[in-house]
Each structure stands twice: as C-alpha cells, then as structure tokens.
C-alpha cells in the first residue's frame, strides 16, 4: 500500500474528489494547509503598513491505496488539479505498511 499526499489549490478540491470517485477511489482525508513555494504571495495593507504574505492557502489530500493504483490516481489528481498556473501544487507518494479500520479491525487492503 501507498499513501498519496497531494497539496492543491483549495477551489480544486471538489474536482479532484469527483475525479477520484470516478475511478473508484472513495476514501480520503483532507486538511487545510498553507503552502510556500514559487507561487508569489500577495500584498496586504494594514493602516499603511504593507506586508508580503508568502504563505498561500492550500488543501492537502491524503489517500491510502493499493500500490497498483498509485499511478492511475496520481494521473487523475494531476489532471483534475491543474490550472497551468504556478502554485498548482505537488503530489507526494510514500510507503504505507499497514492500515486498520477502527470499526471492524479489518486490516490493509480490506480496510481501504
């Protein structure tokens, strides 16, 4: 099993979720994060003081899935999340050793 973590633009979340659903991937965990990278931040003004804000709001999606589905999932996420602008985000894949479903105690692929 693998874990995919994708950091994407917030307003792309629904598209990515739909796209994954279509290929039968229906579990995921989502969190709000702030990203820092090449994408330029914006300027903020408070009583004349100008601040450059480097951190940009992003959404992180975590998906545990069978190893053989990783490639497809990555592709789908990329397609759905893309706007062709800097800051579209990144996808990370890392190893996952075990998954347990709390409710039933099922493990690994049964737990997905």
């Amino acid at each position: 099993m693998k874990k995919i973590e994708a950091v994407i633009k917030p307003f792309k979340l629904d598209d990515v979720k739909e796209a994954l659903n279509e290929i039968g991937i229906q579990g995921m965990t989502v969190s709000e994060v702030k990203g820092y990278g090449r994408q330029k931040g914006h300027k903020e003004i408070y009583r004349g003081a100008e601040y450059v804000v480097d951190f940009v709001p992003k959404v992180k999606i975590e998906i545990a899935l069978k190893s053989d589905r990783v490639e497809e999932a990555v592709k789908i996420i990329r397609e759905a999340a893309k706007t062709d602008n800097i800051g579209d985000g990144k996808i990370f894949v890392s190893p996952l050793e075990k998954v347990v479903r709390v409710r039933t105690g099922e493990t690994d692929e049964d737990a997905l």
Partner: protein
Amino acid sequence: MNSSDIVFMFVSTSFVMFMIIGLALFYGGLVRARNILSIIAQCMICIGLVTIIWILYGYSLVFGSDVFGFIGNLDFLFLKNVGQDAGPHADNIPHILFCMFQLMFAAITPALITGAFAERMKFKAFILFTFLWSTFVYFPIAHWVWGGGWIGTHGGLDFAGGTVIHINSAVAALAGAIAVGKRKGWPVEQIKPHNLGVTFLGAGILWLGWFGFNSGSALAANGVAMNAFFVTQIAASASALSWMAVEWKIHGKPTVLGLASGAVAGLVAITPASGFVSAFPALLIGLVAGVVCFYAVGLKARFKYDDSLDVVAIHGVGGLWGALATGLFASLEVNPSGADGLFYGNPSLFVIQLADNAAVIVYSMIVSLIIFKIVDLLIGLKVSPEEENAGLDISLHGEKAYN
C-alpha cells in the same frame, strides 16, 4: 418646534444609521469568509459617498420645490436655507434633522442592492454606480413619493419606503445580478454563508433600526408613530415564524437563516404599510410575507440570475406585497392623513398602489440597466476570475478579515 419630536427623530435617525452597519453584517456573514470585507467596504461607501452628495445636491433634488412632478429644484443646493430652524417639510424639527433623517434612507438604499452582486463586483465600479444610481434613480423616485412629486400628490401611499427603498433597490438588484453576471461556480458549487452568527447580529440590528425607520417616518412622536412601531414588531415576528414553518415543511428543518430572512421579509413588507394599518392586518402581512418571500427565493434558480443574497426575493417581492397590502388594509382610523384601502371600501387605493409601483419598477429597471452599462463601459463591472478565486478582500482591498 417640538423638542420631544427632536429627540424622537434624533433617535430614529441614529437607528437608521445603525441599520447600515447591521446590513453590512447581515450580508457580510452570508458571503464566504474571503469576501466579507468587500461587503463592508461597499456599505461604507454608501454611508460616506451618499452623505456627501446628499448635502451637495441630493437633498435639494429630492426635497426642493417640485419641478413637473419629477424632481426637486435647486433651492437647497449646498444646504442653502437648510439650518437649525424648521424647514418646509416638517415644522416641528430643525431642517437639518429632517435632512439627516432622509439622508439615512438615501444611504441605505444602494447598500441594499449590494447583496445582488456580492462576491464579484469591482469596487471602483461600485463607487461610480452608487454615485450615478443615487443621482438618477433614488433622488427622482424619492422625490416622486415624498418630495412633492407625482406619486405622493396623487395619493399613493408609502409610509416608510416600501416603494422608494425596497422595491426600487430590488429592481436595481435584479438589473445588477444580470449585468454583472454569475459568480464562478454558481449554481453548481456549494456557496455557503461563512458566519451565521454575524448574519443574525446583523438581522438583530436591522430589526432594532427598523423601529426608527418605520416609526420615525411619522416625523413626530405621536400615535401613528407608535402604531408603526407596534405593527413592525408584529409583522416581523409573524413573518419569521411563517418562513420557518414553510421551510420546515418543505426541507424538513427550520433554519436560523430562515428565521432571520423571514424577519427581514416581514420588516420589508410592513414598511410601506406601517403608518396605515393596524395590528391584525400587520399580522397577516407578516404571515404572507414569510411564505411568498420563501418561495420567491426559488426564482433565481429558475430564471438563472445570481442574486447572491436574495435582494429580489426579499426586498422586491416583500416590498411589492407590502405596497399592495397597503392598498388592501390601509385605514383612516389608523391614520387620518392616509387613506382607506380596498377592504375598507376604497378599491381605488389598490389600483393607485399597483400603478405607482409599476411605474417605479419600470423606471428603476431601465435607468439602472443603463447605469450598469455605462459603468461597464467605463470601468468594467466584474473582477477577473483570479481575483474572484482569491476573494475580493485580498484582491480589491489588500486585506483579510480573519488572520
């Protein structure tokens, strides 16, 4: 001069000013967190800019001596002849107090419109729009009804601005929703209110302020004013409950947004009638307002205009119902300087109300559309998709509400 009336109008005027703050919160809570400041900025422009043009020429255009029934003359340009003594429209209070009470009405009206194109209109465009719309739509129509123009003189009744303020702003709102276009994602995406507590607070301030809005329109602390006070409470309560009831029945749950929307719908509907109808007609006006405005919210989905915060459904439909209900339920017993309505044996009032409001709707729609067109040509109405995505607060104002 009557010093009780001075105090009364001081309080009423202050309350109406506070309504604009309440409106900014009411609307501000309903948009997404990244757009609340853009709502607030627009409301502050309404207060600030309208105050300035009002003292320069607006007051004169509305309340200067009548010219062809259409507009006031320039007698009061730059506040000429407007001082601490009483003026021609109210002999019991200082002219400046009358001027200031009426200013608040002029200021809140464009603020109401903002709900229609919330979350996407350019700020610069809004400023120009407010200037043009106040000048070419609000000032004439206010003159027609209250300043000695054709509606007021031929007997149309609008106690506190159902026609001048609510219907008028809702028509412009419809024009605006169409002219500016839809929000990105609407109606497919879930665009939810970001803070309903703030919206409730806004509704509460509106409710409080409406007491000054309706009662103060009597211009004196008399029985008619207190009648307006009383029926305002009744209609708002009834409408909150009836909106809740129909929503509960149809969607299975009674929402706080429904209760608050219903209350506002009731307040809108009773506005033109408040100085002319008694308690039980007010109860009925409220009960009906909650139901018809609830259903009217569905119109935008049907006709595909993105009236984001339902100005048309609540202020337009609610206002129209109120204006017509005035034609039904007005009674000389409540207010001897009003008129009897259809149910008190005088069908002509109902016809007058119908005709007057039709005229206002047509005028307001045409001129509002022209103004939006002009602003679009000069500045453009809508922000870019990137600005819309980032939120207007950051894009237009360089600020975030929440840090």
